[in-house]
């Protein structure tokens, strides 16, 4: 059995992935499974049945104390005051100039305790960013090492996980969570995900990760559960038009440009980036994220140039085949006034312009 390159970080499930024959890749400095049985097979398993992902590379930051609310609200774009205990919220962590430090999930555990899930390769930067904004006395804890995270995604996710917990999972609403136990180990059980499908993300002790991973695979066997890698995670999130840091969003892109105005609450108190966003809102954005579908033969991929009327006008942030729709889809930045659905565009594929058209997003929305 091969070992990961020593410079790469690993999750508690690294040996299990290798034992089970996953194809491993370097993902932002982490040795992660890109696929098990195949990206298409895993993608369809999540859409039709259930898939299990190791997402322990994701980071966790906990904010405690009487000033926890004030700090959390001051560093995020969404309205933390709107959260009930046991509720989660997608939000942005911004620089003063309005660009993204990261996109994050804020969970309200208690009035004086917020649990934030952040992107793997941004976690140290995020922690520094939040800690440096801590003007009062909140306790900011870098907690990535205390949690393994598994995602159980798909229409049979609930039935699979329910076999391992006494918590009534059907009672957890979408973007809510509860602290319970999975197969005898304490678990934060959240009805969240990055696939556009119903499902759960659970946070457990790293020492229990391999045992729980195997028990979930056993519990889901009757539903055809598949262990899944980051390849399927990417095709699933793209169909659901969920942003990926470094692609749709990064330090030079704002929530308004990224079509994420819904996570910006300018009517709340002050927060990092607010002034820049208010200015951009009043002036209007010059570029905007749009979905597209290839109409010519070819696949528009990350980084390819987008042309309008024969001139460079933008770039593809994520693109590839959509296994669910059987089309080649993608997201791209375009001049804002040309970013509405129905706009013909050309994508430069190997120095050849190939026809595509902007379309409404998300590309895929599950039936509720």
């Amino acid at each position, binding site marked *: 059995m091969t070992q990961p390159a020593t410079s790469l970080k690993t999750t508690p499930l690294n040996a299990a992935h290798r034992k089970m024959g996953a194809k491993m890749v370097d993902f932002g400095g982490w040795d992660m499974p890109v696929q098990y049985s195949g990206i298409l097979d895993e993608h369809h398993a999540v859409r039709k049945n259930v898939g299990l992902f190791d997402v322990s590379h994701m980071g966790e930051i906990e904010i405690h104390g009487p000033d926890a609310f004030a700090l959390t609200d001051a560093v995020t774009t969404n309205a933390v005051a709107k959260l009930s205990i046991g509720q989660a919220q997608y939000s942005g962590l911004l620089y003063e100039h309005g660009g993204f430090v990261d996109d994050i999930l804020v969970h309200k555990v208690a009035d004086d305790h917020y649990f934030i899930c952040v992107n793997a390769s941004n976690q140290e930067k995020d922690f520094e960013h939040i800690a440096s904004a801590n003007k009062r006395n909140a306790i900011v804890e870098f907690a990535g090492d205390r949690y393994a995270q598994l995602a159980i995604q798909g229409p049979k996710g609930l039935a699979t996980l329910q076999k391992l917990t006494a918590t009534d999972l059907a009672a957890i609403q979408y973007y809510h969570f509860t602290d319970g136990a999975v197969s005898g180990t304490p678990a934060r059980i959240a009805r969240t995900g990055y696939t556009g499908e119903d499902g759960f993300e659970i946070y457990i002790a790293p020492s229990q990760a391999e045992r729980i991973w195997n028990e979930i695979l056993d519990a889901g066997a009757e539903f055809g559960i598949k262990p899944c890698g980051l390849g399927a995670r990417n095709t699933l999130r793209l169909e659901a038009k969920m942003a990926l840091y470094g692609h749709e969003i990064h330090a030079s892109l704002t929530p308004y440009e990224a079509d994420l105005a819904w996570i910006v609450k300018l009517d709340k108190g002050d927060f990092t980036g607010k002034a820049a966003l208010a200015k951009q809102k009043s002036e209007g954005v010059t570029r905007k994220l749009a979905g597209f579908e290839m109409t010519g033969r070819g696949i528009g991929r990350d980084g390819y140039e987008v042309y309008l009327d024969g001139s460079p006008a933008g770039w593809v942030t994520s693109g590839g085949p959509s296994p669910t729709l059987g089309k080649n889809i993608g997201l791209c930045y375009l001049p804002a006034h040309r970013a509405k659905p129905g706009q013909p565009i050309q994508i430069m594929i*190997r120095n050849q312009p190939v026809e595509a058209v902007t379309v409404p997003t998300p590309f895929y929305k599950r039936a509720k």
Partner: protein
Amino acid sequence: MYPANFHYTKEHEWVRVEGDVGVVGISDHAQKELGDIVYVDLPKPGAHLEQGKPLGSVESVKAVSDIYSPVSGEVVEVNALLSATPEKLNEDPHGDAWLVKIKLSAPDEIKRLLSADDYQKYVGAE
């Protein structure tokens, strides 16, 4: 695993010689490395190819990979099967899912390619 009558490149293409024509494909190792293949871009009949120069590309869900021609010559036939069903490249890379047939302009080039045994050793060691 690797047919003995094929000749292989280190870029994972193969060629099988039939008279003055070379039938070209990618190896089983290549299709496994690529994963699910969703698109194949091939030259048109009449195109002139050179040994070691780009022939076309194969795209999996994740990525694009260039294919290099193992021999020089003129394309005389393109496998029509692959435009509608590129996934055949995952299923039968040494058989039905050949890519192009090339009229060999320099048959001696074959001597520069790897035998099945040498290719097996090469991918085994990779």
